[in-house]
């Protein structure tokens, strides 16, 4: 069980008429893993998720959850799956409490102490009609229903876009708890700091294609480390090999530049001969990686 991935997608394609929304999506999510799914608006994140839910039918490739086909066996799969859509739309004349209970019952589970605890943690008023809820409150309804469910695979599509920082933290803790209990999580998000903090592996999608998958550490090797250094002499750092985008700092002898990871050791050795007075190196953040993949190759 642990060796077989929960979700397996292989060269998935989807066409809407002539428009090729998904060209080549290949990745997998394992048990006990949080997989971050990132990409700009319109890249195909939600389309991929809708194929996984059996809402729309793929035009090519394959996708399985628990080893079962996402289109044909959707009802069986959904018994062990929880999902929170990006834009939560709720029936306007039902209360939040009623909707949570209904969603749970449709999975064969019931309102439990855990549900009450979640309602309290997220600070939701369950007696209000869904019509009067803000975007954040609608998301809370869907999140509470998902977390009270005992599923094996959780899909979150930009779940925190309307939540305040406090609720965002509640969400993150709940996801980490899922991970510790060996559940698989697919988290699509724009909030890169959130993905960076929680995800074990990341898949980056652009224009309907997965262009990179791997752990953050693996991906960092593909880019450069930012270095800010203040030297004691007039050494010109532009002469160093493998250095990019050199700018002079605010003070004399202060430099900022990016270093290819393969050259890092040699450069540090050279710099050490020039009386390093201050040195700061920052690994690329996910945001840098994101920009790197989206704004061309620089």
């Amino acid at each position, binding site marked *: 069980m642990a060796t077989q991935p929960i979700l397996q997608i292989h060269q998935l394609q989807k066409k809407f008429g002539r428009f090729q929304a998904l060209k080549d999506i290949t990745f997998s999510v394992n048990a006990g893993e949080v997989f971050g799914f990132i990409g700009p608006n319109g890249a195909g994140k939600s389309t991929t998720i809708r194929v996984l839910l059996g809402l729309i039918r793929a035009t090519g490739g394959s996708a399985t959850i628990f080893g079962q086909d996402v289109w044909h066996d959707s009802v069986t799969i959904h018994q062990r799956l929880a999902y929170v859509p990006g834009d939560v739309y709720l029936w306007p004349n039902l209360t939040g409490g009623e909707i949570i209970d209904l969603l749970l*019952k449709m999975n064969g589970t019931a309102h439990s102490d855990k549900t009450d605890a979640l309602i309290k943690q997220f600070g939701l008023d369950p007696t209000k*009609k869904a019509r009067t809820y803000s975007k954040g409150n609608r998301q809370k309804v869907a999140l509470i229903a998902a977390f009270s469910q005992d599923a094996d695979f959780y899909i979150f599509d930009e779940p925190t876009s309307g939540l305040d920082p406090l609720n965002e933290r509640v969400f993150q803790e709940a996801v980490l708890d899922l991970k510790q209990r060996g559940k698989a999580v697919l988290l699509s998000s724009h909030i890169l700091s959130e993905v960076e903090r929680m995800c074990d592996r990341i898949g980056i999608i652009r224009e309907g294609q997965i262009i990179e998958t791997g752990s953050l550490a693996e991906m960092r090797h593909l880019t450069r480390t930012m270095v800010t250094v203040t030297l004691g002499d007039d050494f010109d750092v532009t002469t160093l090999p493998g250095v990019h985008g050199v700018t002079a700092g605010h003070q004399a002898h202060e430099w900022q530049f990016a270093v290819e990871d393969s050259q890092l050791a040699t450069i540090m050795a050279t710099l050490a001969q020039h009386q390093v007075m201050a040195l700061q190196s920052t690994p690329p953040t996910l945001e840098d990686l994101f920009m790197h993949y989206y704004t061309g190759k620089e």
Partner: protein
Amino acid sequence: MSRYGRTGQLIRLAFRRDRFRILMWIIILAALMASVAWKFEDIYGTQSEIAAIKGTLASPGIVAMFGAFSFKGKVTTAEIFANEMLLFMALIQVVMNLALSVHATRGEEDLGITELVRSHAVGTDAPLAAAAWELVIVNGLLGILYSVGLTAANMPGASLEGNWLIGIGLAATGLLFGFLGLLMAQIADHSASATGLAYTLFGISYLARMITDVQHPRLTWWSPLGWVEKLAPYNDANWMPVWLSLATALILFGLAVMANNRRDLGAGALTTRPGKSRASAFLRGPLSLLWRRQRNVIIAWILAVIIFGIAYGTVFNTIGDILKTNPTMQQVFGAAMVHEANHKVLLSFTSLLAVVMAAVATIPGIQLILKAHTDETRGWLEAVYARPVSRTRLFFSYVGPAFLTSTLAYIGGLGGIVVMGDASLDHVKDGISAHEFWQGIAGQLPEIWVFLGIAVLLVGCWPRIKTFTWLYLALGFVSVYMGSLLKLPDWVKNVTPAGWMPRIPQHAVNWTTFSWMIGLAIVLVIVGWLGYRRRDLQMR
């Protein structure tokens, strides 16, 4: 910033937003009026034809459906035209106005668009005023098109004043109910209940005019919908109803503005109360969810149709008593013949009512079926689809209640007519027997189910053209309801299922037709269901 700031810009926006629906309504209504007027001389051109139809139009059954009009002296083609068409056109125009007015105000507010608009430098009453102007322009344009069309048709007996009176009179009636819609949009707190309130008042006006028309036509002045009957455009042109309608419309608009200024955006005078924090044990799946959301609508429809039927039933004793219009008949033919004739009249009246009831009872069913797609596009079903709920189960959670609602509404409506009607008679044997009642049920149910089957087919396979269902139902209703008065050719009636069965209970049920219509309905549902299982769902 004035309270009406930038109304002009919003009016332009409204026309851009609604251009297709406005265009569709205007084309259909203007073409209907003009083409009937154009053909009318062929239908009722000669004195003998006019004399024959004049008798029919004076009979209480037809008065109940088309209104009481007075004829003076030599009756012309144009007068017959006004008698047959005025109330009918007014009804369609009211439906158009209620749809446009609620859509332009509460509908936009529900979608959050009004909030966005009002956050800009736009007057507080500007969205409401823009909706009002939209209605004024649409009704005005229609009125002009009616008048021009009637003038071009040049029916014998028509006058220029009468033509313009019809155009302006219908425009004024439309405006009155359109502004009623605007007021209801301020009172209710979402568009469905605004529409419900407006239709309730519209229904009351309709029933009031029907009952007064049959019994005391002078009292019809108390129903705004009855004013259109008082125009008498071609024999005794009366502009009073126009002024009354316009004055009422102005008052309604004033009230709407007052309500708008007193309430919060997104709220209504009738506010949403907090509800339960837990779901009841009953609420557990897609079927109970639909019932929970739609129960008020479903119950209201069934009750409304029953009340409608009962109201029609109250006029049985006037209609089913030939001696009231022809007192010498008993001396000439004897009591048995008179009872026989009374029974025939009531059968014929009930047959026409059955057509109306079937059309009305089909509406909530179609609404429920189309809701399956509306809910889908609104994203409300995304959460349900992500559960172990099959598409088949979800689909039939809409389709099943739809068929049941329409069926119950029809049985209730016809039952209301027959029970109330028979009870109102002095001589019960003249009325509709139990056997004839069940014939009436069997006669119209296949038609209702085929119409619903078409809605199922479209939602399952081609949801984008689902609105076609309404057009098709409207065509079916008009072709049967107006068919004999307008002497439409048979093929027109046979275009829709409404014309496939003979008039029942006037005639007997044709069980062969009955069987294959039921079969067709089943096939339509199955094809729609297969399509629904295969197609991509549409999400926001």
